[in-house]
């Protein structure tokens, strides 16, 4: 069945691929991945004309290309994280922005010398004026808080199914934002927090011949490379998880939780893991975002962003990391590239969302398993229609 439906040309390529020795295939794969990464690293400097059209800073209203690249990679990290929760474990999380906010605010609250908490610590313990937790130490703090948030949200609510979970997670995302807005004594309220620290790095000479920090406010491509490196590490980690016992447990739970439980998969435990890992990835993205922004307010973490994140994963093809990242890329990049049509972007986005879902519900690049499932469902539906 599967072979018959293939176009002859693709069959030949696949046959040739299968015919190669394992070593050759591994080498070709490695070279391909290396070339891909090299291209991604080179992207900020892309000036060769026909290709440079993809830059976002060609028109006067355009945003800095390097900064856009950074934002794309940040959302790709988010998509990879949310894909663990939605795509692999099948838990509909509409409050992912909450974890992103936890990561961002952890760095802000502990790392900024002007946040209420560090100021309180300076007074209480007599640290030097302007003391704050260094960025490197903020990272484990943020991760720990994200884990805590993931477990705190997950433990009471993961017994709920499907849609109930969706509304509860949505509420959680809102609660985090409102608490950040209201508890001014910790988060500085609606004004937000400024002076968020940057990752440490050596001094570099910039284009104007001035010695500056590696991660400064003008050279966004260093940030982009940092985010890219983080993304690649996370992809490798998640890929390993996917192909492990944990990943198989997630798939089993996604397909049929009761059946998985009967087969001896401790569903609650693995769902909690999915939540916690998703939370950590979301917080990592939030951390980088806050550090790059240097200033954040609770309004940066509106509920709409949660929907946007879910849309990224589903449009790209939930369950497939590459698909989720493609979704993140499209949803972040296209609006930036077409900034000249700013007012029309949300409308176009909504329309595109509906059209993609109607004509390609499995997503643009679905995982193989997912695509097969959709085919089955469609055939099932057609059979049911002809029967009736």
């Amino acid at each position, binding site marked *: 069945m599967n072979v018959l439906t293939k176009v002859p040309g693709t069959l030949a390529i696949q046959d040739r691929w299968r015919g190669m020795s394992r070593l050759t295939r591994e080498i070709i794969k490695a070279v391909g991945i290396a070339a891909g990464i090299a291209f991604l690293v080179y992207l900020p400097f892309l000036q060769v004309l026909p290709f440079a059209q993809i830059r976002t800073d060609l028109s006067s209203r355009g945003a800095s290309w390097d900064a856009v690249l950074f934002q794309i990679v940040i959302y790709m990290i988010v998509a990879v994280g949310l894909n663990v929760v939605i795509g692999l474990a099948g838990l*509909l999380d509409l409050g992912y922005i909450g974890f992103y906010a936890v990561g961002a605010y952890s760095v802000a609250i502990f790392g900024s010398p002007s946040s209420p908490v560090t100021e309180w610590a300076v007074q209480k313990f007599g640290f030097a004026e302007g003391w704050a937790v260094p960025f490197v130490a903020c990272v484990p703090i943020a991760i720990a808080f994200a884990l805590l948030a993931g477990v705190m949200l997950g433990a009471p609510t993961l017994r709920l199914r499907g849609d*109930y979970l969706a509304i509860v997670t949505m509420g959680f995302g809102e609660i985090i934002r409102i608490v950040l807005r209201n508890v001014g004594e910790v988060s500085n309220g609606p004004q937000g927090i400024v002076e968020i620290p940057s990752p440490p790095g050596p001094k570099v000479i910039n284009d104007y011949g001035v010695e500056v920090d590696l991660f400064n406010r003008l050279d966004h491509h260093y940030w982009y490379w940092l985010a890219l490196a983080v993304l690649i590490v996370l992809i490798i980690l998640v890929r390993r998880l996917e192909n492990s016992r944990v990943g198989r447990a997630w798939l089993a739970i996604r397909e049929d939780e009761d059946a998985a439980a009967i087969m001896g998969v401790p569903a609650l435990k693995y769902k909690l893991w999915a939540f916690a890992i998703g939370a950590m990835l979301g917080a990592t993205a939030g951390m980088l975002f806050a550090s790059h922004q240097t200033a954040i307010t609770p309004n940066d973490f509106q509920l709409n962003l949660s929907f946007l994140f*879910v849309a990224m994963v589903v*449009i790209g093809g939930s369950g497939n990391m590459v698909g989720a990242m493609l979704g993140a890329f499209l949803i972040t990049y296209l609006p930036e590239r077409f900034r000249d049509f700013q007012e029309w972007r*949300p409308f176009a986005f909504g329309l595109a969302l*509906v059209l993609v879902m109607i004509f390609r519900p499995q997503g643009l690049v679905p995982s193989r398993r997912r695509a097969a499932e*959709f085919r089955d*469902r469609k055939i099932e539906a057609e059979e049911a229609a002809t029967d009736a």
Partner: protein
Amino acid sequence: MLEQLGLLVVPLVAWDNLFSDLPGHTVDGLTRGAIYALVALGYTLVYGVMRLINFAHSEVFMVGTWAVLGIYTVIGAAEGDALWFVIVATLVALIGAMLASAGTALAVERIAYRPLRKKNAPPLIFLITAIGCSLVLLEIFGQVLHAFFGEPFGRKTISIPSLVQTEQLIGPRGSLLTTDAVTITNLQLIIFLGAVGMMLALDMFVNRSRLGRGVRAVAQDPDTAALMGVNQDRVFMLVFILGGAMAGVAALLYTMQFDITKFNIGFLIGIKAFTAAVLGGIGNLRGALLGGLLLGIVEVYSSTLFDSSWADVTAFILLILVLMIRPTGILGESLGKARA
């Protein structure tokens, strides 16, 4: 840091505030909750029958408020009109809002959801489509119509003439009924009675009429219902029309109280109404009423106890607590059987 924890321990003054006017706060909460409940009916009907969170329902409500504005503008209604004219204008606006909202809901069903049903797509796909539809409807009023017709469409808040002037019906001085216990305005009474009346009518319709029996049958078991001769597609359409009409009523009542509309006015109400529906047990009509009223009361109480900026947090925490104890809401699902 410690003062912060102190915030959760409610000061005695706040309790005094609450109890000094408990009936008044309750009336406020019931009025607010009645509107939530009406909108919640749309979520609960669609969910009960199709197992779908229709996120576009908040925009169905929004379209209703614009319909009210449109009708007032066309018939030239303004503040201070004669009583008979106010009554006629309100009734026309009621019908117009119901039609507009029901039409929008129906259009969403036909254009977006039906093709997905034909493909038997999983729930997540419906959800994303619903979000997409919601965004399209938002932007139609916020951008597309603005580009073609200019004001009043666009992203600004637009005021709607308040035809019914607020008067104290029951209260301390100069009211119809004089009492010190509670103050009730005519608007509050209209909103509460209107909403509850519509809900009773809907409940009767679903439980007593032939069409309603079809709705319940599909909710319980779509396949068996089809075998018994119920036309599923027609039931789905009916459900969207009913939910839309209720949202239209809610839109009129809302504009009566708040006198405004905006392209994204539905967002917050939609989320609250959905919370109310889940609280009461999504898929259960009486649950929507109970959940809506409870949510309204809790919001008003917590605004008094803490601060209005904490109202949403209390609402969601209440939801989480209820779901922890009763995972299918207070009344559970009864439009169909409770399916996990």
